[in-house]
């Protein structure tokens, strides 16, 4: 793994700014990886062993994801919306998991660890660099029972909703009175009044314009035949 300063800089670039959450997140990720015995989580031989479950959608979460290299699309990043400044690091190979929790005390201790800095955020940034892990974090050894449908790898199951026809992957369907339903149909959704529409330039594609013209000519040629 790269050194802390390098990781912090790159993580802050990726996140958009350097903030106290970046410092905490980078350190949380470094500690989590160390605890589960992965020293190069983004290297090809370790990348598939790691799953990180992040419990907050805050600055810290971005830093944890950046340093560990976990990604939603690889199914190595899970978000559980607890609103808790914590993340669990799982080594799939050794089946060890540690939940690293950012302490509330650290906020109150920032003025003691960086008393020479008067502004709140710069002071937190510096203080969170100075605090030892023991002050910044609490750690729990945990067991995470992970369903095979949550693991990385190919889609293991596909079904269609009996009400709306939508394909549902990875066992996320709901069975009600023997009917297979997608979650929006079964439980209601985060959106409402869904109504299908048409929109301007519906036929746009990212292919080059030349290609478009070529396709057009070809079509004309074909119709002229």
């Amino acid at each position: 793994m790269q050194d802390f300063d390098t990781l912090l800089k790159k993580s802050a670039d990726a996140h958009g700014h350097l903030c106290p959450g970046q410092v905490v997140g980078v350190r949380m990720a470094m500690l989590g990886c160390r605890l589960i015995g992965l020293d190069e989580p983004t290297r090809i031989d370790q990348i598939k062993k790691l799953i990180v479950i992040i419990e907050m959608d805050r600055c810290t979460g971005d830093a944890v994801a950046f340093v560990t290299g976990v990604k939603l699309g690889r199914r190595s990043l899970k978000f559980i919306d607890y609103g808790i400044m914590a993340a669990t690091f799982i080594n799939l190979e050794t089946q060890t998991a540690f939940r690293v929790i950012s302490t509330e005390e650290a906020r109150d201790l920032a003025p003691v660890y960086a008393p020479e800095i008067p502004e709140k955020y710069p002071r937190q940034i510096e203080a969170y660099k100075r605090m030892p892990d023991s002050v910044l974090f609490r750690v729990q050894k945990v067991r995470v029972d992970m369903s095979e449908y949550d693991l990385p790898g190919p889609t293991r199951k596909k079904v269609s909703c009996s009400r709306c026809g939508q394909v549902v992957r990875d066992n996320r369907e709901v069975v009600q009175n023997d009917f297979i339903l997608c979650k929006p149909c079964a439980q209601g959704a985060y959106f409402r009044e869904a109504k299908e529409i048409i929109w301007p330039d519906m036929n746009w594609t990212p292919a080059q314009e030349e290609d478009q013209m070529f396709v057009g000519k070809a079509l004309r040629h074909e119709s002229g035949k």
Partner: protein
Amino acid sequence: MIKTIDLKDAVGTKLAHDITEIRPGEFKGAAFHKGHTVCNEDLCHLQKLGKNHLYLIDLEADEIHENEAAAIMAKALAGRGVVWKNEPREGKIGLKADTDGLLAVNVAALAAFNMIDEVMCATMHNHTRVKAGELVAATRAIPLVMKRAPIERAAAIAAQNGGVISVHPLRQGKAGLIITGDEVCHGLIQDRFAPILNRKLIDLGCEVDRVSFAPDDAEIIRRAICSHIERGCDLVLLSGGMSVDPDDVTRKGIRLAGADEVHYGAAALPGAMFLVAYIGQVPLIGVPACGLHHRTTVLDLVLPRILAGEKIGKKELAFLGHGGLCQDCPECTYPHCAFGKGS
């Protein structure tokens, strides 16, 4: 886990903790010690102490008793020059100075330690001069029984960087004194600075090698500094010439002598025009004129710290500000006052 039992059922059980008795003006201490087996004769006495129930402790594997916790914490808190005995009294263990010297408290680590609910540690002020055997801190667990994990985390916080509390012996410096000023040098007025500085240095266990006098001439001051260092002085004190007056050439002399670090100005009163400089490892201290008129000044705050091996720079002089205001009491009671206690 703690269970509560009625006093009448307590005969034959062992006390889970010391039971304190206070008879005002007569006695304060443990009437019964932890581990004592309660017998029939004790019931009356216990009742008089207001104990109608007793606690029975049934420790789970991940639990710890306050006495064991106190010992784990004391071990982690104690740094160099601090000793303690594993003899908790009412759950408390005292930490004592093992040597005469200056108390050093890692204030940030202490605060972090105390932020853990189950533990506490209270200390004397950072930078207090202490004698061997003096109580400098005490620690205890708050609950009678608790989980082991928070105690071990508290111990980890306390143990980093060699413990929270340590006592650094003062080195026996060999000091050179330079009294500057035309009037004194030419015998127009009698110097009163040298005896004052001399007394303070000797009180701190230093030896004063030589006192030299220099007029307001930067080159002569430079030579005086260099000659002290050549004679083996590992500490040089200069008086006078610390004000903003352009004729005050002491500072210039210090720079000419090759000081590679000069910090002028301290956040303490009296003593704002204080100066600390270094030539290699040798500290140079510029004492402003207030040192003549006040019994206690910034010099009394900084000199022991230098002798205890601390490097004094901009930050240390700035942090004196909180608590750095002397109240100018008619009768000076320093060090038993707030002066210098905030940093």
